């Protein structure tokens, strides 16, 4: 019975992203060696191929109803769509390396949001679900102009629910402002809320929107270059009717409910950076990884209704046997 284990990476260089598919049975990984590797959870290799001409920054699975579809983003400024290791489409609009891709909830069709170091958030939609080769740029939002690639942060995360429409939380560039942007077919994308720190002090490097799991509020976690993990409790507008019409009077609002600097201060080092934050399937555990070499888990206090968070353990990224 293995509680924790090490899955030997098939990559010849550093791993940059891991992604589970919808069922949690396949793992896609990508790395600086320009390869995507798909393994199953019992560690048998399924596919392995050179996907980009540059280090791959991010990889994401589509909902299984669209097939075994992967999207990958690379430093070669492309987003590529793969089905079982076969290239289906190359999306070339970005003028900077693409740092993150994430598929929209399946209710909106086969859509993928990308954020690139040119400061643009782009949403592509697949127009031909049968062949997966025709993709249109559905939306594009310029998040940042003066982009400093080396010190910026690029992240996008969809609201996992469909009731509020197509909503993403995105950040680009050297900023600590997370924009919550709503896309709609009829109007241009609107920034409905900005998660801002005051005083602004860092660059947000990673954003994760928690699955709401039916809760009345949403949770968005961010990680910054200052090593802080922050959790925002986001209150969406009340849904007046069930078909998703949002009451216009109500606005999105948010409050910062947690701010942990553990990644910045634990250990002999200071100046830690949060590399990634991610939520579990119910949005009840947040995990964060930092340059202090640890992955930490955070859980809400049971009685707080998402207002009080605590650390629930940590694991190091270096195992000594």
């Amino acid at each position: 019975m293995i509680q924790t284990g090490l899955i030997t990476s098939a990559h010849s260089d550093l791993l940059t992203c891991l992604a589970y598919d919808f069922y949690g049975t396949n793992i896609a990984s990508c790395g600086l060696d320009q390869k995507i590797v798909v393994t199953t959870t019992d560690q048998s290799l399924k596919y392995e191929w050179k996907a980009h001409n540059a280090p791959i920054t991010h990889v994401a699975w589509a909902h299984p109803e669209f097939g075994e579809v992967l999207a990958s983003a690379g430093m070669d400024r492309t987003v590529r769509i793969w089905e079982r290791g076969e290239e289906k489409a190359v999306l070339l609009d970005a003028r900077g390396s693409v740092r993150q891709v994430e598929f929209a909830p399946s209710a909106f069709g086969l859509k993928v949001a990308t954020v690139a170091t040119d400061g643009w958030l782009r949403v592509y939609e697949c127009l031909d679900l049968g062949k997966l080769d025709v993709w249109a740029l559905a939306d594009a939002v310029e998040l940042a102009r003066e982009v400093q690639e080396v010190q910026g942060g690029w992240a996008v995360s969809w609201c996992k629910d469909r009731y509020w429409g197509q909503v993403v939380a995105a950040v680009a560039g050297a900023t600590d402002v997370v924009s919550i942007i709503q896309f709609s077919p009829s109007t241009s994308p609107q920034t409905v809320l900005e998660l801002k720190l005051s005083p602004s002090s860092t660059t947000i490097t990673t954003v994760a929107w928690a699955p709401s799991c039916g809760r009345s509020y949403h949770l968005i976690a961010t990680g910054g270059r200052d090593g802080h993990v922050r959790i925002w409790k986001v209150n969406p507008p009340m849904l007046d009717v069930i078909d998703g019409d949002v009451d216009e009077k109500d606005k999105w609002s948010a409050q910062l409910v947690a701010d942990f600097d553990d990644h910045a201060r634990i250990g002999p080092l200071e100046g830690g950076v949060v590399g990634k934050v991610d939520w579990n399937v119910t949005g009840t555990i947040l995990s964060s990884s930092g340059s202090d070499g640890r992955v930490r888990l955070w859980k809400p206090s049971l009685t707080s209704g998402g207002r009080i968070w605590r650390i629930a353990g940590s694991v190091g990224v270096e195992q000594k046997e």
Partner: protein
Amino acid sequence: MPVQSEKRVLWHPRHSNKFVVGGGSQITLYELSDEQPEIRQVTSQHELQFMKCFAWSPASIPSDIFAVGHTSGRVDLLRLEASRYSQLGRDENVLSSGPILSLPVRNQRSCNALAFCPSDPNYLAVGLDKVRGDSSLVIWDVQEEMGVFRTTMNPFDNANVVTIPHSNEPISKFNTYPPIPRTDHPVRTDQRIVQAHAQTELISSLAWLPQNTHPYLLLAGLSPRWLRLFDIRNPAGSGAGASYVSSIATKVTGIATDPFDTTRFATWGDGVVTVWDIRKLHISRIHSDSTNATPSPTPLLTFSEKDAGFDSVSSTLATGASKPSVASSSASSKTRGVSATDFPNLPVVQHSTYMTAEFSPSRRGVLVTLAKDANYVRLWDVLEVDNSPITREVDNENIIKLQDKVPVGRKSWANLPWGSSGTSTESKNSSPIHEEEHREQSQHPMLILYNTRKAFTRSISNPLCSFAAVPPVYLSHQTISKIVVVSQLGEITVQSVHDAPQALAWSSRGDMLYGPLQSVDKDDVKTGFGVVHSYHEEQEETVKDEYVHDTQTSPSVTRPSMNQKPYPASEPNEFHERGRPRNPVTFQEVPPSPALFGRGDAEGFPALSRSISENPVSANLAATKPTDGRKEEEKKMTFSPAAALRVPLRPTNALSSLMNVSAITHNEPSTSVKSQSSNPPTPKYQSMVNGGKASVVHAAANDISVLMRRRAIRGYSIRDPLRNASVIRELSHFGNPGAGVEFEEPSAFRSKESEMLADLWEWIHHSQKFLSSPTPLLHGYDFSFAGVWGIWDGPPSIGGSGTISRYKDSNTHHAEPSTNMSEEYSSNSGSLTSGSVSSSLTGSINMSSGSSMMFGGSSIISGNIGDAEATPVHRDRLELPLETETASLYPGFDRSRRVKPQDETSTSRETRTRSPITEPLTNDPEWRQALLELLARTEEPSSASRPPIFPYVSTSRPLQRHVCLHLIGWGFILRDDSLMAEVRRWERESEGDEGYARAAAWLVFSGRYGGGAGVSNEGAVHGEGAIECLLRSEDESHHMMSGVIAALVPFASATLTTPNSSSKLALPSTLLEHYARLVNKLQDSYLRALLTHLTAISSSVTPSGEHWLEILHDEEDLLPFYERLALAFCFLDDAALTTYLRRCREHALGKNGGDVDALIVTGLGTSEGREVVGLWLDRIGDVQSAALLCWTGLSSSLGRERIAKLTSGLKAKGQTSIQDSRVARWVEAYRDFLDSVKLFHCRVEFDIERGEMLQIAKDQKITSLAPRQILIRCNYCNKTVTPNAEISLSESNNLGTGQDSIPKGKPTTCPHCGRALPRCSICLMILSIVPDAHREAELLLDHSQYQDNDTIDDAILLCLGCRHGGHASHILQWFFGQDGAVLSHRVCPVADCAHQCGNEF
């Protein structure tokens, strides 16, 4: 090499674990080890007064040769460890520093840089200061000197030879290169000088390129202007300046070579780091020769500290330790051309001069820099991007678009407003010529500065002056870089710099991946990613076994006719279970289902299992009328192909299945729960989590997501509250593995929560048995899932808030058809109850219905039993039809207006009169009648006309109190015999002696003190009381407590007997104080409550009852909520009770609300109830329970309208409240969750159960929860042949009015174009399509002959393989023959079709 007066760290050139720190007048050798202390001083060389620079020879034997350059220009060669070895060696008495061999210099000047050639350590490059007429770069051949050192080596040296297994510098390679030619130096002073270059220049730094690829290439920084590359194999000429391969105009303070990519090197100077490719330096020579305005070759990358501006500032602020580094800002702005003020949004960063830089030897593409006066080193991630054109065929437009935008040598892709001189070309507005250039250049790999991070050392706050990256022990791409830093004060520290791992992922199953993870074994390093498992199949297996066992003994068996019948293994159609999973393995994989249709295909079209298709809920096949079990059974059979052939696929003997049920219900549910919980898998769990990652694993494994999955596997469902309760109890052991107190809090589900939820499900079970069997519809009031508040408060007609039966619109189609319908049903069922089922079975069935079928949702199952008696919920809709109808005529029945909670908060203690607060029940006789009828369901001896007497407190609402107490499950307290029976049960069943305390407390509360003293009450008749009860306990403290009670009884009983007399016995105040102290000492909450109560009533002259509130609100150690409720209903007076209930509601809905047990008060079907569940969900994230509870609640009649909207009327606007849409969200979230953990069968079961609820609601608008999946399209007009859903829906609304809904037109033609449909391949008749609405109408209304009118004969059956088909009955006959047992044909019946359709079955 940089010229430094300060200390400098130099790592062993051959990657040993040694390094030196040099500076001032000494060089010290250190050793880095794994043990403590980490850094050990080995030896040191002093008295190097004029040392300017030093270099470490890469020679392997001896490995401690240093070249020390002096300010005079002289270079000394020495062995650092010579003194050490001489001590150890032969000259024990002489402290010898070993030989020092000097390389003289002709013109005295400072020696700035030294570099041993890595290919041949006999060559030493010496860089000197500028002097007129002399070369500054001298290459010495020091072979002789090396020889001297070798001969002076002592035997110990051999032991000191470092052999590194992974070293990429094989020793044998030395001296394999041909000797380098000697230049004809104009003034040859020394034979050892091989070459001399760079006349009248200042050499600031020197670096040989790594040996293997470019053995004799030497880079030299000719400060302040040039970077020159010399190829000393081929000295181009003796003239000045022409001896170099290439020369680049740039300011170079230092040079660093890349161990991974040997063509790459970095130079720094003036705060700018530039990365070059050696292959690209050649371009420049042409240019530099031709013109003076040098278009210098494009560096791969240029960056400065400013590029990390935001980062550095924030960290400076964060740490507060380092002051902003003040550097030559004038120089910087000059070189950069852009001042920092151009970026007002960025904090101004003074970018500082770099002291040193180095490529990481452990990770490709990591450049480590140290800026002047910085207290950290900075790591830069440099990534190489091969920007060759995309080879895949895309349209040309895109290619051009891509290549247009290619910037080269950029620190970033984006349009940076600044740019260093070499990189300022902007592609956006560039001319076509430039584009051409760019396209050419873009063929080469480009570098991108990807990320940067800093490594602070907490222990060193002073500015650092040098660092050296520690080479890796093992050659793999490491995530951890170690760096030795030395501060200006000479502090030396080793830092480990981690990457911030970019990879982190959670699976839906609760596993977490993180990485990259490096596992360091003794002799191996594995790199990969880590995984934290939170869910263990093995663990689950053991529980599954238990579970399987449990299923067979559990009383809570649903669908008895299908589940309980042990089918033979060969039964072909029983491929998987309905109801609870008998064999949970099937939940892991989709079993191969020999479905007749809907087999599922590659397009992801879900396979329809036959069990689904048989389900009446799945819309089109059967919109059944859930009345009669036998009919139900038969009807189902008619839908199966076997039934069409009159082949019994399963036993139809309803009797036998009934027997099964009744036999099974004899088991107590609690025993089965106990047997599970007594052996929880806790020890195993604990042993698993005792590692370092225990907390992480624990946190993940106890998360609600894992818990929800476990529950679902164990059969957590709408149908069966008792099973839910036992599942929760069982799993709560996982939530509390006792791994440590510190983990207690973050676990998803503490015992408190799980107890609460389990109690709630048990209460739901109980209350629905009470309220809904036989019917929750009483006199126009719907009591299903009511809470005590609704009953206590009453409908608006008597002044309550009317939470019970609050119809939104009771006057429209909803109420009318249902009553019409129920009339018919009742007549029908009446005729059928006297049918085949013997009445002697009714009792047992009622038991089973009590345990498992009190929900409306169970109607279909119970239908199988074949007795209307066994379908209480169904019958409920049928019962009392006349009253219902008449009640609907009452004006008061329309309770659409919601009366706001009246101003009863003023019910303070003063109003505690015995007079009724609210109107008596006479205002609403229906209400009273309904309550009486409810009460009559209990064994309470009460006449229908007279309200029962409430034994404990004088009240104006005895009826409500009775009903509420029964609803809570505490009705036994109203009668002595039942109370005593309960007391016995407590004593018997509780673990330890807890039950005695509980029993004693309740006995005391109800005035049964026992011991012969409590003569006041009837308890004495039985000779039983709290004292006897406590004496029966084995706990001695209980015995003592009995004495306390006995002492207090005279006082207390006096109060009871003469409540208003002032001449009663009163407890002395001293004793009172003592008892108060005693109460605080007691641990047992029951005993506390007991003593509190007893003291209170003993002490005061007129017992106020306020002590009840003390007990009820005892925050420390609360009694279970339902017991507190029972206490309140028993002993609080009306006003206090109202206040208490209100307080409960407010608390449940308040900020800290979300305790689901408050649903007992609010009721499940109310919006308040949903709010409570919503708060619970917000707290716990338990969307599973929320979905189940609220769908259950919605199924009560008040929710029926809402269900209709939620399911069918998705386009309905405005009507549904917020809570209802939330329920839909919860249900969807739960379904998504089940799908994501591949519990498809659980989800299907969930949907089926939900559908059953809808079925009960009998809302005709609801035909399906799922869209129909197959449509038949006309071959000619391409339109759907089957009438569309909307039409059939609207038609079906008119069902009550008769046959109008049958569409016109022949069913054998396409309704749109009128062409004939295909023909049956057997009978050659044209196939026809009977609209669903038509068929459903017949099925609903035409009970007597529905068998004949059923559509199986007309149904179309098509082979998906060959596309031939026909009437289902004919096709089935063809393939299965008359008896249906074996396949009689395999080949398609169509003449020339050879398709083996039979194999598809």
